[in-house]
């Protein structure tokens, strides 16, 4: 099962096992990883599951959809490697994925 590493704004790391088909957001919730609020539960409606994707995985993770890009355009502290973690589905080739959570989701 693909492993995902979450790093919070203070640098604390947690690595958990993900499941193919589940999202990076759901995997964080399932493992009580702090730093991802996901108020809307993954509907791409609230932008409170914002993460920064490790540069090495940017290409594999792919580009955000138009809707996600619009949500990101207006989120706080957005960087070129920002994504909404509810829109990243886990696959075998994302094994080792590293994401960092922002200081605040609001």
């Amino acid at each position: 099962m693909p492993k995902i590493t979450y790093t919070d704004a203070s640098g604390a790391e947690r690595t958990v096992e993900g499941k193919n088909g589940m999202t990076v957001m759901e995997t964080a919730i399932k493992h009580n990883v702090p730093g991802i609020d996901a108020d809307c539960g993954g509907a791409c409606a609230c932008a409170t599951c914002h993460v920064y994707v490790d540069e090495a995985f940017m290409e594999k993770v792919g580009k955000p959809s138009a809707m996600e890009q619009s949500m990101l355009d207006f989120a706080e502290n957005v960087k070129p490697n920002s994504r909404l973690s509810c829109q990243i589905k886990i696959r075998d080739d994302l094994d080792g994925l590293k994401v960092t959570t922002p200081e605040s989701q609001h």
Partner: protein
Amino acid sequence: MTGPARIAIIGAGQAGGQAAYSLRAAGYTGAITLIGDEPAPPYQRPPLSKAYLKGEMDADRLYLKPLEYYAEHNVDLVTGTAVAKIDLAAKRIELEKGDPVVWDALVIATGARPRRLPIPGAALPGVLELRTLEDVDRLRPLMTAGKRLVIVGAGYIGLEAAAVGAQLGLHVTVLEAAPQVLARVAGPEISAFYTAEHRAHGSDIRLGARLVGLEGGEHVTGARMADGEVIPCDLVLIGVGVLPNMEIAQQAGLTSANGIVVDQWMRTSHPDVYAIGDVAFRPLTHYGCSGRLESVHNAIEGGKIASAAILGAAMPAIDVPWFWSDQFDLKLQTAGLSTGADARILRGEPASRSFAVFYLKEGKMIAVDAVNAAPEYIVGKKLVAASVRVAPAELADKSISMKDIGARALA
């Protein structure tokens, strides 16, 4: 963080769950008892009428926290148990089964229940509602291709279920008493657009419909209209709004209106009792009045505020009310409350399936409905929160970006 020794939370939905999570996240180490009358742990309701109804997601993906969370964080989760009585003098609650629970602070998050239709046949087998996981687990196996489904009520629940029904190959009829769909929550442009979308997907949307009874012997077979027509059906879904579950609070003597009355800290008329979520009649900070909100935003915010109030922490940020609805490939995002609007500004062409309606009152934006239009939603939400004057001509002009409109209005 210190606080009262024992906190009881009645209602284990999104609001009750959030109150427990926020208390623990703030470092509260006292006893938390979280009591729900449903068998499931706290879960998300929005997917029930969307992805979950469609069969695209399993129940455990709905859970707000994994089951282990409650043991690991010492939250005593009591499911499948209704509360019979709140005793304010003795500070305890009596359960319908099991020992009473004593509390020093109490949070009431009992939610709401579907309104029943006061018509003959409303209790026939095959007449269902959609509020809980159990409701959907009953409904979903019956929603098979070719079945004739009558939906009563064209609110969010009714229309989302209609969209799923059409996509699953059912013959869907929606009966709405009002002259437009989404009458309680959206303006005429949005209503007309959704009516047309559902009709294009083959559903029969009847506005101003007057349903007088449901017919059938062992099972519902038809919906009788005031003009005598009987619409044959295999299944009826009632989605005509909800009523707050406030009876135990009223019996305890807590002040109520259309919900349990609370102040900005979600505190009821008793200083150690709070009410949050769908059941709370709360101050609507951005609108200078009070009301009940039925939404995820309100559930989460109420849980955070009650936790802060109980622990004596700072007031969390109060967000503009926000909502969303997924139907077909359309995402409707709403910020604010449009009641009392004196002007509406349309931005974009509904035919393009990406547009927004801004609702203004005395020159200020009070709400936005955005269909597949995230920039309009997000900037609109900021403008509602800021309560600033906006220029209607700019809002309607697609050649000016929402980013620029927002920057100018907030400058």
